C-alpha cells in the first residue's frame, strides 16, 4: 500500500527537496556564468606554452625560431596585469616569427633595446592619461626605429585623445618622421577627412558596441600585414 501511495504521486518525493534542487540549479548556473565570463575566455597564463622561452622577464623568443629574427618592442602600459592584458598580441607576433621585448617603462626602452634588430614599437595603451605617446615617439626617433604602432585597448576617450595629440604641432612633426599604424575603436564621424591619409592602412573598429577584445585577431593580422608591406 505504501508503495502504491508513493507511486501515485511520485513528484511529492522530489517536492520534499525542492529548495535544495532550486539552490543547486541556481548555483550551477551562477558557476557556469562566472566560469565563462571570468576564466574560460581570458588569456591569463596563456604564455606558458611550450616553444616560448621566457629567458628574462621581458624577452620572448619566437615559437619556431630562426636566425636573425626581427624584434618588436611592445610597450604595455595597461593599468592591471599588463603582461596578461596583451598576451594575445605577444603570442601572435611570436608565432609569426618575431622576437618580442615586452617592457612597461618607456624610459628603459633605450637600455632594453640595445643589441636587437628592432623593426617597430607597439604602444599598447588606453591613451587616457599622461602624454606618454610623445615620449615613446622621442625614444623611437632617437633609436632610429622607423615605425610605431598605437593599439588603443579602450574606447572612445582614448581614441579622441589620440586624435588630439596627433593634431598637436610637436606630435604632428614627430609623426612625419615615423610611420604610424593605429588600431582603435573609432566611430566613423569622428574621423575627419584631414585624418584619412594618416589613417590609411589602420585598423578601425567601427561599431561603438564592438570592443578591442572582439577584434584581437584582426589587430594581430593587420599589424603583421602592415609590417610586411613596410618591409617590402
Amino acid at each position, binding site marked *: 500500500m505504501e508503495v502504491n501511495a508513493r507511486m501515485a504521486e511520485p513528484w511529492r518525493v522530489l517536492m520534499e527537496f525542492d529548495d535544495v534542487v532550486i539552490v543547486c540549479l541556481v548555483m550551477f548556473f551562477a558557476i557556469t556564468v562566472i566560469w565563462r565570463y571570468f576564466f574560460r575566455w581570458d588569456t591569463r597564463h596563456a604564455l606558458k606554452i611550450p616553444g616560448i622561452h621566457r629567458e628574462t622577464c621581458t624577452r620572448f623568443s619566437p615559437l619556431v625560431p630562426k636566425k636573425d629574427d626581427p624584434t618588436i618592442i611592445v610597450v604595455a602600459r595597461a593599468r592591471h596585469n599588463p603582461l596578461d592584458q596583451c598576451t594575445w598580441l605577444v603570442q601572435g607576433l611570436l*608565432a*609569426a616569427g618575431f622576437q618580442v621585448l615586452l617592457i612597461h617603462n618607456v624610459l628603459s626602452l633605450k637600455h632594453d633595446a640595445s643589441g636587437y634588430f628592432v623593426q617597430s614599437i607597439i604602444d599598447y595603451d588606453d591613451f587616457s592619461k599622461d602624454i606618454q605617446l610623445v615620449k615613446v615617439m622621442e625614444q623611437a626617433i632617437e633609436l632610429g626605429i622607423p615605425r610605431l604602432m598605437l593599439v588603443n585597448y579602450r574606447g572612445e576617450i582614448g581614441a579622441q585623445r589620440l586624435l588630439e595629440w596627433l593634431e598637436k604641432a610637436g606630435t604632428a612633426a614627430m609623426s612625419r618622421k615615423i610611420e604610424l599604424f593605429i588600431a582603435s575603436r573609432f566611430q566613423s564621424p569622428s574621423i575627419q577627412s584631414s585624418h584619412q591619409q594618416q589613417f590609411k592602412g589602420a585598423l578601425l573598429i567601427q561599431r561603438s558596441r564592438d570592443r578591442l577584445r572582439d577584434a584581437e585577431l584582426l589587430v594581430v593580422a593587420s599589424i603583421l600585414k602592415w609590417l610586411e608591406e613596410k618591409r617590402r
Partner: protein
Amino acid sequence: MRRFALKYIVLRTISTVIGLIIIIANFIIWNVSPDEIATLDPILLYRAVLFGLQAFMFSWLAFLTADSISRFWWNRWRLSETSAVETQEITISTGKGNQISGILYQPVNDRDNPTPKKMIIVSYGFNDNLFRAQHIARSLAAAGFTALTWDYRGRGKTRGRITDLEGHLDDLRSLITHWSKEAITQHAQLYLCGWSMGGMLSINAGLGDDRVSRIFTWSTWSDLRRRVLWRLYINPFTLLRYLFKGELLYVSRQRNLKVSPVHYALRIAQDCGGQQNLQALVNEKLFMCHARNDTLVGYDNFKENVRAFSLPPSNQFIFKKGSHLLVRKESILIGLMYRFFNGGER
C-alpha cells in the same frame, strides 16, 4: 591498437556499470523491489512512462536552446565591423547541378592593388558553421589574403546531409577548380586551411593537387573509424548531441578509407612514387597543429598523421592546452598561418 581496444573495453564497462547503478538507484529511490514490477498498476506505469518522456522532451528542448545560444551568443569571437575587411555572400555552381553558398572576405585596402590576391579556402569542423569560422576568415582577410568560408552539405543554403563526408570532399575539389580559374586568383596562389573535419578535407582534397600551394590544418583526425568514432559513441554528451540533431556520424570501412588522412597518405605515397617523394611534398606543403589535451580528436591522431606523412618538426606545432578548438590559441594560429602562407620567411 591493443591499447585503444583495452581503453574502449574499460570505458564501455564503466559506462554499463554506471547505467546499472542508475537503474538500481531508481528502484531504491522509488522504494520498489523487482518482485513488485509485475503487480504494479498499469495506469501508474503508463504515467511513469509519460513522465519519463516529458523529462526527455524538456531535455531535448533545453539542448536545442542551449545549442542555438552557444552558436551565436556564447561564441568567443563575436562579430566586429572594421575598416580592414569587406564581405560578400556568394553562390558557386559546381557543374554537377549542385550549388555551394559561402562568404568571401577581402581586404579593403588592397582593392586598388592590381597584383593578384592570395586565396585561402577555410574549412571548419563537423559541429561548426560559417559564423563559427568567421573570426579566422576575417583575420586572414585583414592579413591581406582573400578568404572563403563555404557551407557544407546540410549547412546553410547548400543542400544535402552533413554526414556526407565524401560529398564535402567533392565540393572542396569543385571549389579548388572554380577558384583556380577565377580572375582574382588566376595568377595567384591557392591555399587551404581547416580544422577537425575541415583539416581532413583540406589534406585529402589539396595535398595531391598541384593547384594548391600550401595547407594548414589543426585538430585533424588520422583514422576516423579507428581513432575518433569510438570516442563519440562512448561520450554521452556528444552522443546526445548527435542523436538530438539527427546527425549521427558513422562511416563504413570502405568510406573510412576515403575520409581518413592516414589511408590517403598511403595512396598518395604510391602516386608520388614513394615515401621520399611524399616527404618532399609534405615538407613543402603541409603544416599541422594539435593540442595534447584534445579529448574529441585525441593527440594520438596527430602522432599517427605525423608518422604517415613523415611530417618534419618544422611543419608541426603542438599545444599543451587548448583542447579541440584550440581555445585561447587563435592568435598563435593566425601568426603561424601568416608565416607559413608567406613562405615561412620574415
